[in-house]
């Protein structure tokens, strides 16, 4: 982008202003200049369907697929112990709080098709397993077909739309967690000590 000084100055001011006013949506942690983001304020959206993503940048990607007209929840990353990212570093407890407070019937965990994205989806699904078993909630994941190991951002909207339409239960393809590790709803404590 090439700008004349006359054009550049207002833009620079706008950017500074944006940086000062843009924050996170209080409900879904998408980027917004308001308390609630545009999507959360949109009354035509289906609030019983929530799409969980890693980053705010994933929201417009999923919007372009025109497959789901629900709300979002932005985690702010994916689980990665190597990088020091445990469940407490993501907005997972905020997600579980929303599930308590709102009438959410399905959670579509659209984290990236990478190992960290997959682990994050599994973690959320297993923590919510009691609600799923009680028939109160479905936890799904876009179907296979997305290029494995890549970011959601690089998927084209047709592929993404198909994967979202054919979503499956996260725990469908996995064995249940062992009995000795009790799954706790919103159990986020890090057992650092024995």
């Amino acid at each position, binding site marked *: 982008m090439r700008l004349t000084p006359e054009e550049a100055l207002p833009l620079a001011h706008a950017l500074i202003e944006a940086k000062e006013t843009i924050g996170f949506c209080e409900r879904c942690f998408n980027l917004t200049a308001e308390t609630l983001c545009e999507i959360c304020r949109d009354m035509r959206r289906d609030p019983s369907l929530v799409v969980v993503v890693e980053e705010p940048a994933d929201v417009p990607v999923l919007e372009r697929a025109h497959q789901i007209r629900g709300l979002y929840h932005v985690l702010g990353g994916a*689980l*990665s*112990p*190597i990088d020091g990212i*445990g*469940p407490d570093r993501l907005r997972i407890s905020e997600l579980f709080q929303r599930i308590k407070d709102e009438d959410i019937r399905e959670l579509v965990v659209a984290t990236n098709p990478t*190992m*960290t994205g*997959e*682990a*994050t*989806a*599994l*973690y959320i699904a*297993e*923590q919510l397993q009691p609600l799923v078993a009680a028939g109160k909630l479905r936890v799904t994941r876009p179907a296979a077909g997305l290029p*494995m*190991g890549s970011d959601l951002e690089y998927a084209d909207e047709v592929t993404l739309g198909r994967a979202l339409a054919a979503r499956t239960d996260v725990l469908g*393809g*996995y*064995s*249940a*967690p*062992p*009995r*000795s*590790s009790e*799954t*706790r709803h919103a*159990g986020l*404590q*890090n*057992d*650092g*000590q*024995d």
Partner: protein
Amino acid sequence: MRVREVRLHDFRCHSQLDVQLGPAVTVLVGSNGTGKTSVLEAIHLVLQGASPRTSQTKELISWGAEALRVEIELQDPEGRAVAAAAGYASTGERRNTAGGAPLTDLSRWEETCPVRAFIPDDVRLIKGSPRRRRRLLDRLATAIDPSYGRELAGYEEALLQRNSLLRKGVVGPDHDPWEALLARSGLRLAAARESSLRSLFGPYAYMHSLLAPAPSAPASLLYRTNVAALDEPSYRERLNDQRFADRRRTFTNLGPHRDDVRFTLGGRDLREYGSQGEQRTALLALVLAERSWVFETSGREQLLLLDDVMSELDDGRRRSLVALLSRDGQVVVTTTDLHYFTSEELCTMEVVELTGPAKRSGGS
């Protein structure tokens, strides 16, 4: 792709040497000290990135020289010439090129011109660290299923993540998702390795029976894994149970990253109880079996480099070996004595005589 010519500059005892290879078997003949094995090393260095004899590349540079250089002329299936070269300086600087352009990833040669070497003194695959034997398993499994590599990379990432939790002292539910991924992926890896090794067993037993001095007990290859009896739930449960023990050792004990292959002769483990001769025979049988297996499975030819294999065999076994070498791709074999070959055999081979260091030598 086939190798047509190899040129060595300041490589071990050769200040300058050009060798032309035939399309099938090339025999490098010369008395001890003429640098036959160096030619095999040079080919291996360019196409695999290291000598099969030493990891100290500096040792390969001629005494008094500052750098070595090896150029290889290849020919692709359409008959086009492809140039591969490697230069190593005593300063540690190295440079690989393909067609004159710098090449950082040598997997290009592994894909187009795979090379395997047999050096009699090097039985590390059988005696050494299990890592080499796991690499064998991974090669076999990848040849059968190209998606295996992705599965392995995913497994290794999940393993690093769980080990990272162990090192930080974490043993709680943070482990759950990684253990689920390890169980799913680990069982897939083990199944792929087990079945690919099983398919190599026939060719291996056959090659071994041709090469081992009679009477020989039956030779076997056994896949060893600590996840053999597990399904996904019991695998996860085991990982879960071992969190505290794993935290003490700071790594994950359960899983195919601990796999091994056992070479046995009449049930005896050759790694611990085999003689040097038995280990060599097993290794040569393995190299030949993998080559023939790869050719049968994928139609791909391997360039085989065999150092001094004829001297230890009796006459009948030499004939069997030469018959095996004349199929499935190119071979370079070194020998001190041409009489190990019959005159009929020599007619079908390229014979290159090495007369000694610092002298030029060409194809016959």
